[in-house]
């Protein structure tokens, strides 16, 4: 193909010499993504066949007729571009055309194929798009940009964890997160928060299991293939960059600003100076005392009005990212080296994080058809965080609105901030809570691979690759000892001395993964092509964790387990998993327009029983380039290409860890005692024939390019059925056990993924506007669970649970609600007017979005580029489990909905004893509308539905403006060949429905690996918006 094009250009060049010429045009063609010259670009006078090609340095010289107005530039993998002929030398920048059918992409197994051969949905995200808003987590950088990919930043704070799910949740209890592959090496998902985004060349997102099935049993959730940068032939480039970013709180819970401290049983509010509850009288601006007198008799006095300091508690976070990279290459080899240092201060006072990463990639032609490639990456990060952020946040909410909270940051010297003098009789100073409970974590990651490829004859190649991924971690946590003064203990019975405690732990994991691949690429006759791969791989995962902890510190401030009087407790955990796989993959092409791809892999996994540990994954897909065959498409001016595709696959997911097959015995009831051991039988039994979960999936779709690639669209419909879920089924304790790990249950996912990209404006003067949209719809359903069970609780929080319920969407929020009459009205007591809570939990709604829409836009003009990304999600709900912080304390806005007066519960009824029917309630007011109603479980705080709300949102995910300094300007600076300055923002705005009083709906109170999605708590501090500036120079 390429040869054909080249000879064509040569022909054109020869032909053109015969025509009369009148002037000479010169110029340079560079690539948009890295600013490097592009050799071999076709240059023709628009509308003619007169043309040439660029040289190795990207330069061209062409003699054109005097009436020639513009030149058209074409290059494989890049969008065609027409530029007006000006007076001086032309500087033309070509943009990669990601959807061009001939673009070469990397797919499962590290295999390079043309996009036309791909029969499954796949999206490529290039470096520029990834780093435009300078996200420091690669997961965050993908948010909203890929159809079908859902990215949730599940927490706040430094380096928050990210959950990535493709095509919905399939596994009830097992892993649903996409497989992450860096340079053909399967790595832990946590790498996304640690890899340097500037090192990434591109990310290929394989949405379905079929596309990824060559990776074996981890691929049922789709895959993210990350390719890191390599050096380029003949180009030496050094880039240095600096990004500075600020984080401010973007969304605060809605708090009442009217009432101060105190409590008011029976609607008679009284002011209490030391009370945490905010059910006192309304603010009136008068001066009031707060707290109890200190030992010396002094007491604080503040105005009785809203101070706003609860919201000022959160600080402005600052982060800084410094980058340096070097790449170079010659005819025989290339290398790329980079380093990055990143530091971050959180919005949570005192929390810090830093990360240093270093990468060396290289490749070398060893001669004799031998090629050697390697990549290595070392990352270290350090966390210094409070381990009690949730309680600190609760303590903030337990602070009445008139309290000057931020003045209490210096608890060590300020007597009013010190625990011995703090105003609050019941809850500690949040600054003290943060300082007194801390944890430090260090992680060192080393990942890398080396591969040797040998092609004895042109169609045949052998590849041997070894990869390594290690993580080395240690952690230290402590609660410092604090002894209250006798004076404080004398006036406050609620406090007891903090005895303190220390824990220390270490962990390592190592994965070694050798792999062998033989590939045979050939033409079969005139019409057929063949691309076959046979491969084998082994994987060995080894991990170990140890921990020690002790309580009752002797002296404050020395955080060592030996500084305690408690017994030092220790723990140890080991795990070793192995896997072997062999696979075969074949693509048969017919006349470059029809491709059939079949693959099969067999895995053997050590964690399964001998008889069950071998299993096979088949997959097949087909790709048909309709635009090359169907005449009206072929001849259409408007249509560039149309590809139809479809695939089916079956992939197994092993959802148990090492050593799960045999019940264990543990020391119980305090054993060991004094050197004497004692063991009891564990509570779980395991089915003898445990198998992997099986996901069968089907997908079909099309890709269209029109109007010279100015409109690109794709559409995919998919469905998957996951059967044989590995579930610890609850069993009656009368069996002697409480859970039975077995294969049962089925989950179905159905959905569509679609994306559209248009370039409405592209002028010869260089103005280009690109607009993109992607939309995803996913609906899932639990088809069955087990014979004995129609629901399975995944997690419980407050008065709500996340469950898998037969016949319902998954995950399903269940919770308590008000008792209602048959017409759905809330039943109130005919005397007190109080509603009551149901004993049972009912289905409240699903907790994963049905609809997701991503919008993006780019405007570029003369070196200036503006880019933005928006995201919308809807069709799901969320529960906030912090009713204590909000309504018990009286800080929440709900407690003022009826101005703390008696009220008629809206849409309520009561039982008329005379008729024994429910009668609409128009006049029975609640016995009280103050503290008694709002802090009471059955009437308010115990009703989960009161804290459940639509989790829909619009977010402005990214906004960035960059400016590439003109070359002419840089000439004077000497060695600098390129410079770019920019400003960037992320998550700048969050628009949520009014019902969301609490926080970011992306959050999850459980960690990113938990499928119990839909809870938020106070451990997730308010979400941040990031904005800042960046600068990079290229030498």
């Amino acid at each position, binding site marked *: 193909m390429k040869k054909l094009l080249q000879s064509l250009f040569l022909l054109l060049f020869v032909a053109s010499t015969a025509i009369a010429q009148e002037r000479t045009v010169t110029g340079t063609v560079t690539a948009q993504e890295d600013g490097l010259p592009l050799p071999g670009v076709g240059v023709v006078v628009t509308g003619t066949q007169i043309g040439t090609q660029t040289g190795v340095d990207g330069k061209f010289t062409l003699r054109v007729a005097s009436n020639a107005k513009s030149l058209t530039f074409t290059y494989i993998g890049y969008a065609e571009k027409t530029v007006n002929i000006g007076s001086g030398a032309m500087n033309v920048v070509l943009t990669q055309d990601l959807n061009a059918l001939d673009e070469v992409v990397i797919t499962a197994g590290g295999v390079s194929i043309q996009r036309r051969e791909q029969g499954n949905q796949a999206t490529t995200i290039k470096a520029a798009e990834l780093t435009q808003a300078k996200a420091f987590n690669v997961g965050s950088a993908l948010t909203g940009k890929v159809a079908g990919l859902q990215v949730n930043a599940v927490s706040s704070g430094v380096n928050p964890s990210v959950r990535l799910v493709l095509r919905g949740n399939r596994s009830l209890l097992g892993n649903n997160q996409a497989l992450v592959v860096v340079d053909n090496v399967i790595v832990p998902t946590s790498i996304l928060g640690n890899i340097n985004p500037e090192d990434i060349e591109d990310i290929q997102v394989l949405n379905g299991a079929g596309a990824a099935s060559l990776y074996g049993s981890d691929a049922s959730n789709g895959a993210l293939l990350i390719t890191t940068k390599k050096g380029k032939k003949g180009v030496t480039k050094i880039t240095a960059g600096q990004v500075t970013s600020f984080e401010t709180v973007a969304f605060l819970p809605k708090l009442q600003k009217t009432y101060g401290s105190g409590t008011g049983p029976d609607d008679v509010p009284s002011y209490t100076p030391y009370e945490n509850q905010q059910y006192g009288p309304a603010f009136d601006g008068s001066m009031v005392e707060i707290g109890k007198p200190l030992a010396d008799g002094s007491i604080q006095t503040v105005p009785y009005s809203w101070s706003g300091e609860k919201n000022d508690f959160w600080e402005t976070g600052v982060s800084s990212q410094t980058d340096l990279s070097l790449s170079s290459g010659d005819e025989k080899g290339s290398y790329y080296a980079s380093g990055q240092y990143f530091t971050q201060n959180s919005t949570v006072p005192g929390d810090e994080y830093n990360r240093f990463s270093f990468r060396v990639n290289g490749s070398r032609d060893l001669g004799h058809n031998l090629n050697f490639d390697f990549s290595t990456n070392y990352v270290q990060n350090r966390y210094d965080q409070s381990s009690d952020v949730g309680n600190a946040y609760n303590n903030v909410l337990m602070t009445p609105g008139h309290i000057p909270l931020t003045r209490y940051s210096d608890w060590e010297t300020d007597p009013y901030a010190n625990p011995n003098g703090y105003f609050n009789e019941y809850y500690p100073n949040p600054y003290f809570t943060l300082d007194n409970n801390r944890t430090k974590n260090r992680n060192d990651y080393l990942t890398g691979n080396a591969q040797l490829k040998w092609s004895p*004859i042109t169609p*045949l190649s052998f590849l041997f690759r070894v990869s390594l991924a290690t993580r080395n971690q240690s952690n230290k946590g402590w609660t410092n000892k604090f002894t209250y003064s006798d004076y404080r203990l004398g006036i406050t*019975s609620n406090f*007891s001395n903090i*005895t303190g405690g220390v824990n220390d732990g270490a962990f390592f994991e190592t994965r070694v993964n050798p792999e062998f691949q*033989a590939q045979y690429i050939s033409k079969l006759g005139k019409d057929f092509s063949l691309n076959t791969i046979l491969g*084998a791989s082994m994987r060995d995962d080894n991990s170990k964790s140890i921990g020690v902890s002790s*309580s*009752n510190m002797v002296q404050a401030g020395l955080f060592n387990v030996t500084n305690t009087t*408690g*017994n030092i*407790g220790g723990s*140890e955990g*080991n795990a*070793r998993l*192995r896997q*072997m796989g*062999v696979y075969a993959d074949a693509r048969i092409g017919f006349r470059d327009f029809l491709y059939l791809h079949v693959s099969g892999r067999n895995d*053997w*996994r*050590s*964690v399964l029983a*001998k008889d069950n*540990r071998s299993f096979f994954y088949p997959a097949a897909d087909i790709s048909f380039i309709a635009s090359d065959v169907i005449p009206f498409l072929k001849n259409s001016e408007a249509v560039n290409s149309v590809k139809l595709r479809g695939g089916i696959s079956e992939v197994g997911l092993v959802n148990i860890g*090492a*050593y799960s097959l*045999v019940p*264990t*015995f*543990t*020391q*119980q*009831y*305090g*054993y060991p*005692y*004094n050197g*004497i*051991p*004692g*063991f*009891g*039988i564990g*509570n779980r*039994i395991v*089915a003898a024939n445990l198998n992997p979960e099986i996901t069968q999936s089907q997908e079909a779709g099309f890709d269209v390019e029109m109007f010279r690639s100015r409109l690109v669209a794709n559409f995919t419909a998919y469905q998957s059925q996951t059967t044989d879920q590995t579930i610890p089924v*609850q*069993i*009656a*304790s*009368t*069996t*002697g*056990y*409480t859970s*039975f790990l077995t294969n049962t249950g089925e989950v179905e996912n159905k959905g569509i993924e679609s994306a559209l990209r248009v370039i409405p404006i592209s002028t010869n003067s260089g103005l280009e506007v690109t607009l993109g949209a992607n939309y995803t719809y996913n609906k899932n359903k639990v088809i069955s669970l087990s014979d*004995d*069970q129609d629901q399975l609780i995944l997690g419980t929080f407050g008065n709500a649970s996340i469950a898998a319920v037969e016949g319902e969407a998954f995950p399903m929020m269940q919770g308590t609600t008000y008792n209602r009459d048959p017409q759905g009205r809330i039943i109130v007591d005919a005397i007190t007017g109080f509603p009551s809570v149901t*004993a049972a939990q009912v289905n409240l709604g699903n907790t994963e979005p049905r609809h997701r829409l991503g919008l993006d836009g780019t405007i570029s003009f003369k070196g200036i580029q503006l880019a933005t990304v928006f995201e919308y999600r809807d069709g799901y709900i969320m529960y906030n489990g912090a009713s204590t912080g909000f309504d018990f304390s009286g800080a929440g806005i709900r407690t003022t909905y009826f101005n703390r007066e008696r009220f008629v519960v809206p849409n309520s009824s009561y039982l008329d004893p005379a008729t024994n029917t429910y009668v609409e309630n128009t006049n029975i007011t609640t016995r009280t509308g103050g503290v008694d109603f709002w802090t009471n*479980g059955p009437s308010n705080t115990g009703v989960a539905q009161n804290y459940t709300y639509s989790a829909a949102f619009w977010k402005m995910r990214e906004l960035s403006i960059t400016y590439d300094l003109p070359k002419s300007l840089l000439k004077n600076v000497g060695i600098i060949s390129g410079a770019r300055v920019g400003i960037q923002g992320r998550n700048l705005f969050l628009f949520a429905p009014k019902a969301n009083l609490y926080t970011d709906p992306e959050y999850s109170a459980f960690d990113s690996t938990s499928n119990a999605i839909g809870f938020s708590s106070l451990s997730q501090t308010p979400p941040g918006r990031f904005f800042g500036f960046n600068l990079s120079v290229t030498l």
Partner: protein
Amino acid sequence: MKKIFNYILLGAIFVGATSCEKYLDINENPNNFTSATPDLVLPQAIVGSASLTSTFNTTMGDIGGQRANGGGFGGFGAVVTYQWTANDGGFSGLWTGTYDNVNDYEYVIRETSGDPKLAFSTSIARIMKSMAFARLVDQFNDVPYSEALKGNQNLTPKFDKGQDVYQDLVKQLDTAMIAITAGQADPAVNSLKSSADPMFGGDMDRWKRYANTLKLRLLIKMAGVPELQSVTGPAFASFDTSIGFLTSDAVVNPGYVKTDRPNPTYNALAYSTTGATQQTSRIPTKWMYSFYNGVKLTDPYRGGAVYRSFPSSIVNQLGDESTGVPQAPASGTSWSVLTDNNDSDAIGITKGPAASQIVMTAAESFFLQAEAYERGYLSGNAQTAFDNGIVASFTYLYKDASNTVAAGKDVAADVAAYKAANNTSYLVNYELAASQAQRIEAIITQKYIALNMISNDEAYNEFRRTAYPAIVNGSLDPVRTFASRQSTSPRADKLPSRLLYPQNEFNLNPTNVPTGVDQFNSKIFWDIND
């Protein structure tokens, strides 16, 4: 080329397949045992049973008359109304805890019964399993027994009738006693190291006496049921009294330590491992207090051992939530005479964090004997047994953390003084009891006092079986009944009659759970009172 390639591939697969097996055979657990010898399982199961003794005791205190709500807390709800649901966590804990515990005994029996050398281990497991199942039947009546504990062999075990379970438990105890006797005569049978037996230190005679006492307890409960008298009659006739009964308290001590593995009763009724005071929402009942403070009986001796600040302890009536109800004491619970959380040695209920955990008192053994003699089930002197029971009760309460009577305490003198102080009461002075009914009332009332906060569950069982100590049905007087002021019970005595099956059993074994069971109208099979 292609052929060579095929050969290479075939060869690779062959080599791979053989080494593959070894490469993958690494799934042996390095973290936990996947099997354990019976001698590792038996001792922790006994310690588990001892811990459950404390759990049963504490949980049943609200129902049995010993414990009431304290002031300063609201929302006692079902605790004071008896409107329990199957979801009640406290009661389901008794169920699941027991099945978890008996599963360990079942394992020991399964693993050892094939080996005659391990007859002692088998027999101990049999005795303890019988004790645990009897305790379960006493609160839940019909329970899964014959099909229980089979793991995934039977995920929905059927429920056996309480009385059928009892009959089999008697057989199990007989089997165990016979096997122990045979084992004691056979030098080939392994004797138990004292460390492997945290209850009797390997003394098999004491195990037999314990088994015999349990058997007596079962038969006495069955004997009141007319349809079971055809079983109990011959059983008493052939009763092997030569084995004897428990004469000293059956206690367990694997080596409790304060910091993280304290005595369960201390942990439940005195202080947590962090030193926090327990039972902050509960205080003693005025009902129970009346057996000590002179209202019904005068007993400053045991009263002072059991209650903090006797005779002016903080007390209440169950269900009285009115303002002015005193809060639980902050320094330590009302059932602890330990001065504070640093004190580790005291008499009474909570003797200390390292003290032994009671499983069965000698007092109960004597009162069981007294009843058997009084009713003529067995031959013996009821009054002697009754008096021994009172002495044994004083003795247990006067013991300190070292399981010996504390210095300065004189059991004989105080028992004499107790008798003198109550010289007109047949509840104390047996010879004053004029009828068998009064004598039985005296025996059961003294048992009730002796088991106060030690085995509240058994005290309540015996109340249900015999209707003693006597109450005045429907009275609101806190010393005339222990029924809650807020009772919703339709029964004459305003009390509940049994616990409800836990929700999980309804969820997971729905076809087998007996239907129509409620906490007021359904009774345990030995409950022959209305």
